[in-house]
């Protein structure tokens, strides 16, 4: 049985609940006992807005807004990682989990990361977009599903069957 093949599974997370669901789905289903798979948790930070040091009105922008932004961003990353941790903490002993943070346009970064890491699979959640719940995929998941060469699993929010 060639079950010892190592597989790299990238799970893209963001601040949404759906991506946490995608993460827990992957942990439950993609890591059978005895497999040697690696979970790569990828979070993409939105790109930093660029501030020039002198704005249009001629005032010099001090370092404070930039520092505040950095702090906010840092907190955001921490909160997403903490939430992911509560999801995967039960599995930590059995699975290799790597955490990566990227910055920039989410869809591009995810596709590049999957390519660079030579991932075997990508798992991504999808946002529910109001009326069009079933008609639209999130733009990021759709883009990635089309662009990426490896198999993609798109996890949707489970309809409440109870």
């Amino acid at each position: 049985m060639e079950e010892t093949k190592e597989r790299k599974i990238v799970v893209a997370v963001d601040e949404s609940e759906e991506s946490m669901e995608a993460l827990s789905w992957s942990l439950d289903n993609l890591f059978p006992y005895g497999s040697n798979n690696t979970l790569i948790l990828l979070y993409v930070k939105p790109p930093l807005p660029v501030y020039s040091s002198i704005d249009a009105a001629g005032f010099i922008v001090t370092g404070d807004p930039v520092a505040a932004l950095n702090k906010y961003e840092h907190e955001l990353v921490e909160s997403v990682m903490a939430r992911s941790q509560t999801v995967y903490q039960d599995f930590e002993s059995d699975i290799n989990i790597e955490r990566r943070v990227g910055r920039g346009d989410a869809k591009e970064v995810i596709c590049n990361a999957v390519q660079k890491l030579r991932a075997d699979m990508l798992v991504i959640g999808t946002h529910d977009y109001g009326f069009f719940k079933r008609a639209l995929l999130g733009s990021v998941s759709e883009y990635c599903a089309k662009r990426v060469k490896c198999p993609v699993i798109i996890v949707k929010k489970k309809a409440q069957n109870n």
Partner: protein
Amino acid sequence: METTTVMERKMVEKQPETTVEAETPSVTKMKRIMVAIDESDSSFYALQWVIDHFSSLLVTTLAEGGLLTVVHVQTPFQHFTAFPAGPGGATVYASSSMIEAVKKSQQEASTALLSRALQICRAKQIRTETLVLEGDAKDMICRAVEQMHVDLLAVGSRGLGKIKRAFIGSVSDYCAHHSKCPILIVKPPKEMTH
């Protein structure tokens, strides 16, 4: 008057103390995986991929293992279309014998495909069932997913030739949008042209 064994009833379900969101979603192991196949090689590639990766969940040796459903959708033959016939140009409607002949060949094609799929599955001891549906492929697949409470739908994806980047194939695209369960899209490796 000794009490024999004390029955300990442990509350197995942990209630995590998340105050912000609702309970953490209890995602159970997959019980039912559906793979849609057609004549294309990429759908068989998808089937093979599912078997390779999820065999631990689907093997017959497991008492409570999952079930792999292989589905093939037949596009119905439009028997009420008129067929221009002969040099006279008079249109002829398909005769019942012709309809039957076409139906028969469709059945045969379906059976051949599904038996090919079954062979692949049996070789790896996968618990499988087959299903034939008639109608518009994308629609029927999504309906089947809903009715049969499928946990994961796997589809191949041919892509549409030159428009490679814009589409992943119309059936897989539609299913990705409309299916109610998680969907796995398997793309064939570059060597496969079809």
